[in-house]
């Protein structure tokens, strides 16, 4: 009997341990999006009040510069954590569009009046349908949408400074350079 065969179970065990160790470092709430590189699902939503217009999927397709589509809600616990980052991103010139998900428009207005409004436009999605079409599982989530209205990336959870500098900003720069 060739002796090296006895090493095979040990090797298999080592591979299993490596796979499991890697798996344990992953966050199970980060579900990969099925919409990457696909166009935004069709929607046309009203704004938070009669004075402010909402937006539609078509608003993203007219060859505009790449944008962020941020899903938020006034009831969301992690959104205030992300908010200063969004204000900074918007101040830096990146258009941020807001989808107010499963929320009452009046509450969202009050929430934004208190924390500041980073959004160029806000669409109200009280029935959650647009969020579900986008595969949203919770708030906040942020989509990077290119100039053709295609979703290129999805961030789950608050955008940290590291997420912005390391992932989102370089990606937006790359998308701006695209035809």
């Amino acid at each position: 009997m060739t002796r090296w065969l006895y090493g095979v179970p040990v090797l298999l065990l080592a591979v299993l341990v490596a796979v499991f160790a890697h798996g344990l470092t992953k966050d199970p709430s980060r579900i990969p999006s099925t919409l990457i590189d696909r166009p935004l699902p069709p929607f046309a939503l009203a704004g938070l009040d009669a004075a402010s217009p909402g937006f539609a999927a078509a608003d993203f397709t007219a060859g505009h510069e790449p944008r962020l589509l941020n899903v938020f809600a006034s009831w969301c616990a992690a959104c205030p954590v992300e908010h200063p980052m969004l204000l900074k991103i918007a101040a830096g010139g990146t258009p941020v569009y807001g989808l107010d998900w499963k929320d009452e428009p009046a509450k969202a207005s009050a929430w934004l009046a208190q924390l500041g409004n980073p959004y160029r436009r806000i669409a109200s999605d009280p029935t959650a349908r647009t969020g579900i079409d986008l595969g949203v599982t919770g708030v906040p989530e942020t989509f990077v949408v290119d100039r053709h209205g295609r979703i290129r990336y999805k961030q789950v959870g608050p955008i940290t400074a590291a997420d912005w500098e390391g992932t989102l900003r370089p990606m937006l720069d790359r998308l701006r350079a695209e035809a």
Partner: protein
Amino acid sequence: MRRLVLAAALLLAMSSSGPAAAVLPSEQLRDPTLEARARTISATLRCVVCQNQSIDDSDAPLAHDLRVIVRERLTAGDSDAAAVQYLVDRYGHYVLLKPPVIPATLVLWLGPVVLLVGGGIVVARLAARKARVPDAGLTADEAAAAARLLEGRG
């Protein structure tokens, strides 16, 4: 005695009521056949917020929304498969509690079979090898040594 009967009745009531489903009366469809199909489908769909519960079991607001969507699709005439596909299009295969057989899950589905068959072949070959080793019997020296040992015992 009355207390005993009461306790027995309570025990019976507790044991006969299964885990309560999260489906609200307001969500349910009038058509019992459609509602039954919706319940069956919902039990196979993952609540994407709570991860290891089906939307049929979960009280999460998003699970409620997804249950309503399943019922809407069925009412609109979708087949069971089409209603499930509607949510798979949005949330990916992750939304299915039972992973489908696709290239990415082949290891999951075939792995145990491959290990079992492979292990079986290894064990069978080892057993066959052992059986093939000829019984050479004892040499004269060995027989003498064995005889000495056995005598010593007596």
